[in-house]
C-alpha cells in the first residue's frame, strides 16, 4: 500500500517547530555537547590508561611479559610452562658486561642471551624495530642502537667487526677482563634507554654463567590473562618450590591500581551518563509538556500519533547533530593536552612521554553513546506526545493531583512549599538525583584534592623543614663541618624553631648470639641475605671490627629523643635514656617485623673513635625500632645501630661528630627563613641538604594540576545539575503561573511567594545534600584508598565541603526567586487568563 | 592555622544561630499574646462577657475593659429593647382597648341596619357599617404589623417537611380561594428544608393570600416545589394582574401598595414579612411578573443547617 505523501509536510512542520523554539534548542544542544564531551574525555582517559599501563612494562623492560621468576631451575621452567594460566615462557640470562669498545670506555653495557621464545615472542614485539638477525655464531652480537651510538657508531652495518673488552658475570670470574672481536649481525631500537646487547647460545655457554646464578638468570613468563592477582603469584610460588634467593617479580600494585582506576572510571561514566540522560530527558519532558497543547492542536488538525512522534524524534536528531560533533571536537582537543597530565597525577610513575593517547575509535564510541543517550531520553516524551488526546492536550496541565486520604489542616507558606516540592514526583526525583550526583562527585574531588595537598603530605611525611648532611661522615678523613658554631648560628635565626643534632660514630659490637642471634638468623633467611649464615657468623666472631659487622653509634638530643619515643608509643624512660642506662637498637632492614627478643637484653660494645677505644661498655636495649624511626642516614654493617642520648655519647666519645642536623622552622615553608638557614653553610661542597620547601615546589605542580582537573570535571557535572535545576524551576514556576496569580489575588505578597520558592529550594538542597553525604562519603573513602600513594591518614576536608554546601544552598535559594522575579511581572489578570502558556 | 579558622567560623555560626533562635522565640511569644487578645476581642464583638481573673496581668486589665464595653453596648441594647417593649405593650394595650368599642360599634351598626329605616338612614347605616369594618380590619393589621418590626420576629429554624408548610398555608387561604372560584393546584414533592415552620407558613400564607387577592375569578394558582442543591424553592404562580417592572423591587417595601391594587384591601406588608422571615433563615424571595400576565413568587428555603 502506498502511503500518502505527507512526509515532507511533517518535516516542514517539524522544522518550523524547531526553529520557533530557539531557547529550548540551545539548551538541548548544550546538554548534548556537555554529555558527549564528558563521555569522550572519560573514555579516552580510560583507554589511554589501559594502553599506557600495558605499554609501560614493555618499554621499561624492553620486553613484553607479565611476570618474571629469578634464577629459574630447569624443573621449574618445565613446571611453569605446563601451568594452565601460562601462555609461554622465555629465558634470559645476563652473562657478560662490555667495558670498552676499542679505546672508548663504555657505560656498563650488559650482554644477554635469550632463548628463542624470549626473542621471538617477548622481545621483538617490544622493539620499535630491528635489523639483521639474532646471533647464532659464537662471535656474533646484536646491540641496541642506543649502545651503538654510545660506542660512536651512528651508522652500523651488518658484518661490522667490533673489538671489545669485556668480563663475564660468572661468579668466580672476579670480573677478569677479556678481549674479543665480535661481528655485528643486527641491531634494534627500543625505548628502554638501556645499554644492552644479545649474544648467541654458544657464547653464553662459553661464559660459564648459569641461568640459576644470582641476579643473572630470569624466566620471563607471559600469562594467558594479563590481569593477575597476588593469589595467582602465591599459587605459582607454592608449586615450583623456590630456592632461598628466588623471587617472582610481579607488579601487583599496577594491576590492582588498574582495576581500581577502571572501576572509578566506570562509575564516573555511569554518573555522567545518568546526569546527561537526566538533563536531556528533563529538558525534553518539560518542553513537551509546554508544547503539549500545540501538539494537541496538531492532532485536532489531523496529524497522527506516528507523525507526531516522528516530529519529536526529528527534532532530537537535529539537536544531536549539532551537539555531538562539537562535544567530540572539544574533547579531542582537550584530550591531547590534558590526558597525559592527568595520568601522571594518578600514577606518578608515568612520565609524560609514556602516555599513549587514545585513538579515533574512542571518540566515535563516545559519539554513539551520546546519541544513544539522546535517543533513550526521547522515548518517554515522544510516547506522551503520541498518546495525547486532542481535547486533553488542549487542557493539559502537567500536574498529578493526588488523593488526600488524611484530614489535613495545614496551609501556611511552609506547608505549601513542602507540597510543591513533591507535587511532580518525577521532577523531584530527577532534580534530587542530579544534585546528589553532582554533590557526590564534588565530595570525591574534594577528598582527592585534599589528599594531594602537597603541604599536607609533606607535613606528614617530613619531620623537618631542612636537613643538612655531612657527606664525609663515613670517610676515613671525615671533617666536622657541622660545627657547634654553625648550629648556634642557625638556632639564632629568627624563623628557626629548633635544631636537632644527630651524631654518629663507628661502634664495634662483639658477637653476642644471645642478643642478636634470632635477628641475624632472620636476616640471613630473608631475600636480602648478605650471604652464608654460618660462614659469616664465624667471621663475625673472629673479626667483629670487620666493616661488614660494625654499626653506627648514634646520639640524639632531647628533641630527637622526643620524636624517637613518640614513634614507639612513648614507652621509653626519659631519665634512664639521658643517663645512658638504656639505648634503642635499629633493625637493619625496614621490612623486618617483630623485635626478635632484643629488648631487655644488655649489649656490649666498644667505640674505636671514643675516648677509650679499648674499653668495653654495656648498655641495656630498651626497644628495637624500624629504620624509619632512625634519625641518622648513614648506615653501618649488618649489626643493628644503637641510639643513645647525647649526654651519654659525649661522656663516652668526648667530642661528637655531627652527621646531620634537622632544622624546624616556626612557619613551615617559610622562604625567608630557608634562605637564611641555607646561607649558614654557604656553598660547602660536602654538605648536602634536603628541603621540604624544595620538595614542595616540585609537588606544587602536580597539586595544581589535580586541583584544576578535579574541579573542572566536578564543575562540568555541577553545571549539568544546575542547568537541570534551573530548567525544572523555570518550567515549574511558569507552569504554576496561574496558581501564583491566584495566590496573589487572594493576598499573597511577592515576598511570601518568594519565601515559598526559597523554602522549596532549600528543601531540595538539604535533601540532596543528606543523600549525597550518605552516598558520597563512603565512595570518597574508597577513592582515597585507591589513590593513596603517600600513605597519609584519611581526613574529611570539612572546610571545602562546607563551602560546597553553602554554595549549593545559596544556589538553590536564589534560582527560583530569580526566575519568579523575571517572569511573574505581568498583571495578575493577564496571568490568570493566559494560564500556563507564559 | 586552618583549624583555628574553622573553629572561629563554627563559633560565629553558633552565635548567629543562637541569636536567630532567641529572636524567633520572642517573636512567637509576642504573636501568642496578640492572638489571645484577638480572640478576646472576637468574643467581645459577639457580645460575650468573659471571665476576669483578678490579678495584675495586662491581660486581665484588657479583659476587664472589654467586659465594660460589652456591658455598655448591652446597656444601650437593653434600653432600645425596653423602648420597644414599651411600644409593643402600648400597641397591644391600645388595640385591646379599641377592640371592645369597635366590636360594639359594629354590633350596633348591625342592629341599626336591621331596623326599619328610611332610605337615607339606611345608606348612612351602611356607611357606618363599612367604616367600622375597615376600622376592624385596620386594627387587625396594626397588630400584625407591630409584630413585623424586625426584632420581634423570633425565628427558630429546624428541619421541616416542606409538604407540611404547603398544606397548612393552603388551608389558610382555601376559603377565600373557593369564594373566588380559584383553583389551587398543589404539586407536591417530598422535601426537607431548614426553616421555622410557623413563620414560614405565615410567609407562604401571605404570598398565597396575595395570589388569591389579585387573581381573577376562575383562574389557577399553581404551587410547586423545585429542588436545588442548596435550596428548596416553593413557587406560587398565579394568573393575576401582574406587577409592573418598575414596581417589582418596591413591592417588598413595608406598607407599599401599588396603585393598581388600591381596590383591594391590604396593608402592604405581606411580602415584606415574607422577605424578612426568609432572610432570617438563610433564604430569599424572588418575583417574576409581567403586567397583565400573572406573577410568580419564589420562596427559597435553605437545605443546609442554618
Amino acid at each position: 500500500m502506498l502511503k500518502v505523501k505527507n512526509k515532507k509536510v511533517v518535516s516542514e512542520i517539524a522544522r518550523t517547530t524547531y526553529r520557533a523554539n530557539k531557547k529550548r534548542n540551545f539548551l538541548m544542544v548544550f546538554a548534548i555537547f556537555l554529555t558527549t564531551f564528558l563521555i569522550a574525555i572519560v573514555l579516552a582517559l580510560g583507554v589511554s590508561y589501559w594502553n599506557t599501563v600495558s605499554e609501560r612494562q614493555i618499554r621499561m623492560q624492553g620486553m613484553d611479559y607479565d611476570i618474571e621468576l629469578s634464577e629459574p631451575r630447569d624443573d621449574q621452567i618445565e613446571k611453569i610452562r605446563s601451568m594452565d594460566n601460562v601462555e609461554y615462557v622465555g629465558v634470559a640470562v645476563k652473562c657478560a658486561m662490555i667495558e670498552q669498545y676499542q679505546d672508548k670506555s663504555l657505560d656498563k653495557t650488559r650482554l644477554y642471551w635469550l632463548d628463542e621464545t624470549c626473542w621471538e615472542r617477548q622481545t621483538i614485539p617490544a622493539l620499535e624495530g630491528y635489523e639483521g638477525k639474532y646471533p647464532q655464531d659464537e662471535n656474533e652480537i646484536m646491540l641496541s642502537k642506543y649502545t651503538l651510538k654510545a660506542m660512536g657508531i651512528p651508522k652500523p652495518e651488518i658484518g661490522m667487526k667490533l673489538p671489545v673488552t669485556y668480563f663475564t658475570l660468572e661468579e668466580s670470574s672476579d670480573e677478569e677482563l677479556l678481549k674479543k672481536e665480535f661481528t655485528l649481525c643486527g641491531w634494534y631500537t627500543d625505548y628502554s634507554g638501556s645499554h644492552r646487547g644479545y649474544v648467541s647460545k654458544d657464547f653464553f655457554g662459553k661464559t660459564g654463567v648459569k641461568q640459576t646464578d644470582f641476579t643473572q638468570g630470569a624466566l620471563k613468563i607471559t600469562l594467558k590473562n594479563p590481569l593477575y592477582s597476588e593469589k595467582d603469584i602465591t599459587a605459582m610460588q607454592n608449586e615450583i618450590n623456590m630456592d632461598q634467593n628466588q623471587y617472582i617479580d610481579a607488579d601487583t600494585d599496577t594491576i590492582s591500581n588498574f582495576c581500581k582506576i577502571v572501576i572509578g572510571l566506570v562509575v564516573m561514566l555511569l554518573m555522567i551518563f545518568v546526569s546527561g540522560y537526566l538533563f536531556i530527558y528533563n529538558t525534553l519532558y518539560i518542553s513537551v509538556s509546554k508544547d503539549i497543547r500545540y501538539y494537541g492542536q496538531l492532532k485536532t488538525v489531523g496529524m497522527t500519533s506516528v507523525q507526531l512522534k516522528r516530529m519529536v524524534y526529528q527534532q532530537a536528531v537535529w539537536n544531536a547533530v549539532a551537539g555531538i560533533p562539537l562535544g567530540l571536537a572539544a574533547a579531542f582537543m582537550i584530550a591531547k593536552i590534558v590526558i597525559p597530565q592527568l595520568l601522571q597525577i594518578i600514577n606518578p610513575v608515568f612520565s609524560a612521554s609514556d602516555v599513549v593517547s587514545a585513538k579515533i575509535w574512542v571518540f566515535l564510541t563516545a559519539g554513539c553513546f551520546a546519541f544513544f543517550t539522546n535517543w533513550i531520553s526521547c522515548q518517554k516524551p515522544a510516547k506522551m506526545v503520541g498518546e495525547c488526546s486532542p481535547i486533553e492536550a488542549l487542557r493539559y496541565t502537567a500536574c498529578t493531583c493526588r488523593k488526600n486520604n488524611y484530614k489535613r489542616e495545614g496551609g501556611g507558606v511552609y506547608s505549601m512549599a513542602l507540597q510543591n516540592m513533591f507535587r511532580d514526583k518525577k521532577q523531584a526525583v530527577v532534580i534530587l538525583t542530579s544534585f546528589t550526583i553532582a554533590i557526590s562527585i564534588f565530595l570525591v574531588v574534594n577528598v582527592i584534592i585534599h589528599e594531594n595537598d602537597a603541604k599536607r603530605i609533606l607535613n606528614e611525611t617530613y619531620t623537618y623543614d631542612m636537613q643538612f648532611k655531612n657527606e664525609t661522615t663515613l670517610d676515613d678523613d671525615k671533617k666536622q663541618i657541622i660545627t657547634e658554631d654553625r648550629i648556634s648560628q642557625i638556632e639564632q635565626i629568627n624563623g628557626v624553631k629548633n635544631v636537632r643534632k644527630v651524631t654518629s660514630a663507628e661502634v664495634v659490637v662483639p658477637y653476642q648470639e644471645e642478643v642478636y642471634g634470632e635477628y641475624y638468623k632472620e636476616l640471613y633467611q630473608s631475600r636480602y641475605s648478605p650471604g652464608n649464615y654460618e660462614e659469616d657468623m664465624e667471621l663475625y666472631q673472629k673479626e667483629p671490627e670487620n666493616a661488614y659487622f660494625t654499626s653506627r653509634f648514634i646520639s640524639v638530643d632531647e628533641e630527637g629523643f622526643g620524636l624517637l619515643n613518640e614513634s614507639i608509643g612513648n614507652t621509653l624512660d626519659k631519665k634512664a635514656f639521658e643517663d645512658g642506662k638504656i639505648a634503642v637498637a635499629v633493625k637493619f632492614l625496614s621490612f623486618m617485623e617483630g623485635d626478635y627478643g632484643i629488648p631487655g637484653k644488655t649489649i656490649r660494645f666498644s667505640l674505636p673513635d671514643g675516648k677509650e677505644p679499648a674499653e668495653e661498655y654495656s648498655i641495656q636495649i630498651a626497644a628495637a625500632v624500624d629504620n624509619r624511626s632512625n634519625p641518622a642516614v648513614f648506615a653501618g654493617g649488618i649489626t643493628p645501630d644503637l641510639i643513645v642520648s647525647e649526654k651519654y655519647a659525649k661522656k663516652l666519645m668526648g667530642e661528637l661528630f655531627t652527621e646531620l642536623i634537622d632544622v624546624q622552622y616556626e612557619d613551615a615553608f617559610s622562604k625567608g627563613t630557608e634562605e637564611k638557614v641555607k646561607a649558614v653553610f654557604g656553598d660547602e661542597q660536602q654538605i648536602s641538604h634536603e628541603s621540604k620547601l624544595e620538595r614542595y615546589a616540585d609537588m606544587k605542580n602536580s597539586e595544581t594540576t589535580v586541583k584544576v582537573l578535579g574541579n573542572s570535571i566536578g564543575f562540568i557535572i555541577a553545571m549539568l545539575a544546575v542547568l537541570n535545576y534551573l530548567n525544572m524551576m523555570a518550567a515549574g514556576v511558569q507552569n504554576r503561573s496561574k496558581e501564583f496569580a491566584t495566590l496573589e489575588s487572594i493576598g499573597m505578597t511577592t515576598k511570601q511567594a518568594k519565601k515559598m520558592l526559597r523554602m522549596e529550594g532549600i528543601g531540595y538542597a538539604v535533601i540532596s545534600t543528606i543523600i549525597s553525604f550518605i552516598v558520597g562519603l563512603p565512595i570518597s573513602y574508597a577513592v582515597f584508598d585507591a589513590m593513596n600513594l603517600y600513605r597519609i591518614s584519611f581526613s574529611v576536608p570539612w572546610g571545602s565541603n562546607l563551602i560546597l554546601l553553602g554554595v549549593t544552598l545559596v544556589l538553590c535559594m536564589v534560582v527560583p526567586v530569580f526566575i519568579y522575579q523575571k517572569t511573574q511581572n505581568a498583571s495578575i489578570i493577564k496571568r490568570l487568563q493566559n494560564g500556563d502558556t507564559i | 592555622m586552618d583549624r583555628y579558622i574553622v573553629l572561629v567560623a563554627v563559633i560565629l555560626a553558633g552565635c548567629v544561630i543562637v541569636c536567630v533562635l532567641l529572636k524567633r522565640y520572642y517573636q512567637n511569644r509576642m504573636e501568642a499574646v496578640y492572638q489571645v487578645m484577638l480572640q478576646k476581642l472576637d468574643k467581645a464583638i459577639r457580645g460575650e462577657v468573659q471571665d476576669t481573673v483578678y490579678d495584675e496581668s495586662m491581660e486581665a486589665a484588657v479583659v476587664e475593659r472589654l467586659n465594660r464595653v460589652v456591658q455598655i453596648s448591652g446597656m444601650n441594647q437593653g434600653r432600645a429593647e425596653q423602648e420597644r417593649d414599651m411600644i409593643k405593650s402600648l400597641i397591644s394595650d391600645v388595640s385591646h382597648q379599641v377592640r371592645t368599642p369597635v366590636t360594639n360599634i359594629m354590633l350596633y351598626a348591625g342592629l341599626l341596619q336591621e331596623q326599619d329605616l328610611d332610605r337615607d338612614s339606611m345608606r348612612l347605616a351602611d356607611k357606618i357599617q363599612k367604616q367600622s369594618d375597615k376600622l376592624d380590619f385596620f386594627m387587625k393589621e396594626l397588630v400584625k404589623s407591630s409584630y413585623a418590626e424586625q426584632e420581634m420576629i423570633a425565628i427558630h429554624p429546624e428541619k421541616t417537611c416542606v409538604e407540611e408548610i404547603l398544606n397548612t398555608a393552603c388551608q389558610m387561604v382555601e376559603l377565600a380561594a373557593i369564594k373566588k372560584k380559584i383553583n389551587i393546584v398543589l404539586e407536591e414533592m417530598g422535601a426537607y428544608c431548614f426553616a421555622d415552620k410557623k413563620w414560614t407558613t405565615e410567609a407562604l400564607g401571605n404570598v398565597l393570600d396575595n395570589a388569591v387577592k389579585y387573581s381573577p375569578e376562575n383562574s389557577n394558582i399553581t404551587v410547586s416545589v423545585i429542588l436545588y442543591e442548596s435550596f428548596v424553592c416553593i413557587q406560587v404562580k398565579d394568573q393575576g394582574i401582574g406587577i409592573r417592572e418598575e414596581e417589582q423591587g418596591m413591592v417588598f417595601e413595608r406598607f407599599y401598595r401599588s396603585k393598581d391594587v388600591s381596590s383591594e384591601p391590604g396593608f402592604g406588608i405581606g411580602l415584606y414579612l415574607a422577605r424578612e422571615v426568609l432572610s432570617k433563615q438563610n433564604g430569599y424571595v424572588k418575583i417574576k411578573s409581567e403586567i397583565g400576565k400573572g406573577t410568580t413568587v419564589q420562596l427559597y428555603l435553605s437545605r443546609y443547617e442554618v
Partner: protein
Amino acid sequence: MNILTTENLKKHYDMGEIQVKALDGINLFVREGEFLAIVGTSGSGKSTLLHMLGGLDIPTSGRVVVDGKDISKMAKDELTIFRRRKIGFVFQNYNLLPLMNVYENIVLPIKLDGLKPDQDYVEQIITLLGLKEKKYAMPGQLSGGQQQRVALARALATKPAIILADEPTGNLDSRTSQDVLGLMKTTGQRFGQTIVMITHNDEIAQMAERIIRLEDGKICGGGDRYAESEE
C-alpha cells in the same frame, strides 16, 4: 455609608495606533451591605472595572477608594496585603489551589496573614455553604458548583469589606447557577457582606438588589430594584 467609591475612573490601553478606552470616567458608589450587579455586554468594560475595584490592575487616571483607603496609589505589596484583608474574590473559573483540600483553600488567606482562623466562624461558613461533608476533599473531586462554593467560602473567610464576583456562574449550568447565586445572596445578608457582581446576563443580575449598566466604558443606566436613590 459608602464602602466603595470611584471618582472619574479611567483606563486606556494603547495598542499601536489605536487607543482603547476600556473605562471612560466611572463614578460609582457602593453602599455597605448591598448586593450590586454590574451588567454589560462583552467589551463594555465591566471586567476592567471589577479589576480596578479589586486592585488587580492600575487605573490610567481617577481614584478608587475602598473602605476609606485610596487603592489606586498603593504600592504592590501594600496593595496585596490590603486585598488580602479587605477584598474577597470569586472568579469565573474558581481558581482554587489544586494541591490543597477544601478547608485549606478556605483558610489560606487567613493563614497568609499569619493569623489563626476563627474556627467557629469558618465552621459556620462551611455549614452554611453545605460543604461540611466535603471539608477535606480535594478540588479535583468536586463539581463546578461545589468548587465555586469553596471559592465563595474563601472570599468570606477574612470577613472582607467587599466581595467582588467576576461572572461567578459563567462556568455553571443554570440550576447550579441559581444555587450559587442564592448562596451569595443569603450569606451576604447573613453577614452583612457587600457584594459586587459583574455579569453579562440580565437574569442573573436580577438576583442583586441594585443593577448598574455599563456600555462602552460608561455607566448608562440601571438603578435600584428597591427604590432607594443613588447618592
